[in-house]
């Protein structure tokens, strides 16, 4: 209903202009990044600007991926982010379920979990660095996976907690009476119904890991380094490597976009529709 009323108030033309401007606002930087990644170096800062290079080149891509070891960073990032996301969502879902359904830890535990996010990362990065060096986790993917899991967990828990709290309890009750154990009710009923929430939490966790810079910078060096840390190399004393930076940025965007498209289908599926009255 509100959408209808709005459409009557806003003539179609006005809406198209607004949306057009918005799309341009979002896409213009992306476009500029893309053309920069295929421009010869001389065209970066040319005046007037070069809207599309006369001779597109892929040289920046090969340089960023191989000379600057962007490919290694990409592989590390994929492994670390995926593993941390899976762990964070898995543990977060189980924790949130326990908080939502069994009131684990009373009223305060759930808030305590979220409050872990209030801590500035810089406060803990040095102790973690020292511990990691001591136990041999420094510059390992495992070390980064553990750190990322811990740091994305509060948000995963809170997203899933909100989701479980909004989910009617009666389906799990029905499963328990029907013959499920508590564990089966969780896996066979609650988790499938929470799939849209899990997808959303996974997207959040993955993007947080994918773009994380600070921990990666401190906790890795020559082996387990992730994609964001590679970008440091493009800002050297001899000037910025705009082409290489843009090329690697384009590469690093791909998984986020793919994930967004994949998860979007889950997010809009509206699984709980029809479960209850309506």
């Amino acid at each position, binding site marked *: 209903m509100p959408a209808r009323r709005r459409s009557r108030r806003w003539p179609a033309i006005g809406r198209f202009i607004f949306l057009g401007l918005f799309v341009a606002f979002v896409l213009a930087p992306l476009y500029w990044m893309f053309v920069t990644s295929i421009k010869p170096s001389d065209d970066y800062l040319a005046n007037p600007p070069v809207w599309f290079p006369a001779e597109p080149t892929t040289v920046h891509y090969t340089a960023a991926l191989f000379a600057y070891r962007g490919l290694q960073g990409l592989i590390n990032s994929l492994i670390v982010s995926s593993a941390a996301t899976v762990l964070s969502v898995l543990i977060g879902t189980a924790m949130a379920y326990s908080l939502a359904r069994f009131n684990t830890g009373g009223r305060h535990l759930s808030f305590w979990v979220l409050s872990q996010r209030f801590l500035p990362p810089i406060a803990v990065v040095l102790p973690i660095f020292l511990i990691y060096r001591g136990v041999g986790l420094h510059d390992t993917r495992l070390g980064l996976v553990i750190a990322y899991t811990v740091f994305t967990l509060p948000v995963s828990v809170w997203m899933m907690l909100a989701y479980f709290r909004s989910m*009617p309890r*009666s*389906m799990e*009750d*029905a*499963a*328990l*009476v*029907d*013959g*499920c*154990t508590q564990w*089966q009710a969780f896996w*066979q*009923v609650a988790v*499938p*119904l929470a799939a849209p929430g899990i997808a959303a939490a996974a997207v959040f966790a993955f993007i947080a890991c994918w773009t994380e810079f600070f921990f990666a910078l401190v906790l890795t060096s020559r082996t387990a380094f992730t994609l964001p840390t590679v970008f440091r190399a493009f800002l050297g004393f001899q000037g910025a490597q705009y082409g290489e930076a843009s090329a690697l940025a384009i590469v690093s965007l791909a998984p986020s976009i793919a994930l967004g498209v994949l998860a979007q289908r889950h997010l809009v599926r509206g*699984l*709980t*529709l*029809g*479960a*209850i*009255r309506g």
Partner: protein
Amino acid sequence: MADVKISGLHKRFGPFHAVQGIDLEIADGEFTVLVGPSGCGKSTLLRTIAGLEQASEGTIMIGGEVVNDVRPRDRDVAMVFQDYALYPHLTVERNIGFGLRARKMPADEIGRRVRRVAGMLGITPLLGRYPRQLSGGQRQRVAIGRAIVREPQIFLFDEPLSNLDAQLRDEMRGEIKRLHQDIATTMIYVTHDQIEAMTLADRIVLMRDGRIEQMGTPAELFERPASRFVAGFLGSPRMSFLPGSVVRRDGGIGILVDGSDMPLPLPAGRIPESVPAGARVLLGLRPEHVGRARDGALQSGFVRIDATIELVQPTGSRTFATFRLGEAPALAELQAHDVSRAGEVIALEINLNRASIFDEDTERAL
């Protein structure tokens, strides 16, 4: 099939005392309705029987076995929920078979049972659909099918019809009654709807504030309510309560309703001898106890009064008319042609044989 025996049951949620000492025996095959206003503890009691809530105190026995520490899945009960609680990610067929699958029954046996139950409930064409593709009534049928396919010892219903529209509710109510006749399994049914309670129950347990206010057959509760609360809860339109005092004169006994100058004579023995003259009481009159006066001699226990009709509510077959007896308003159930408009003065006949009388302070029946 099994009986249920509950003794000294309490359930607390933190400081909130939801169920406050329930003693209840439900015979094998009996249809018991737990009824009461919202928040009276009836759903909590049902969920405690199902094992979805843990009793704080007291014992629950099903089929002679104490089940306080038995998991819901091992109590062999089936439950139908108010919001149906169908699994939205499963088809109707898998919804109905879910409990059997969880119990590792062989697939061909599951298929056979699901088809038989679907046939019983007339939902065979829906087996391949998902819950979101069903109407409210169809969903309710699937929920019932999911319960009966397991052939449990006890059925629990938690307000199963309250989300349906009036017509469908009448229809499903009939089906549940027929189901009980067919399978004769113990059923415990929670509702806040007194009509459901009256029509379905072998026995009604009327609850209030976590306690049992009265239990008995529907007729017992309706005709001999133990308290003003019970009398007011059952029956629609509800009973009128007229405050007054007891008068004793010439060996007879009557009630002088406040604001009236004529005592209403009660049948002998209607009030215990111990109640003194002047005692404050509430006279409870159901609309059907007050009708248009007919010609001829007055039957014993009936009184005639002339009343000014203040409000007329026709329902088609009958008309409910508000009149004043003394100071208090009361309702009469009349034939449609007995009264045409407010302001009319007509002769009414009150059947005091069936009137209820309550102590004004304690509100318990005398």
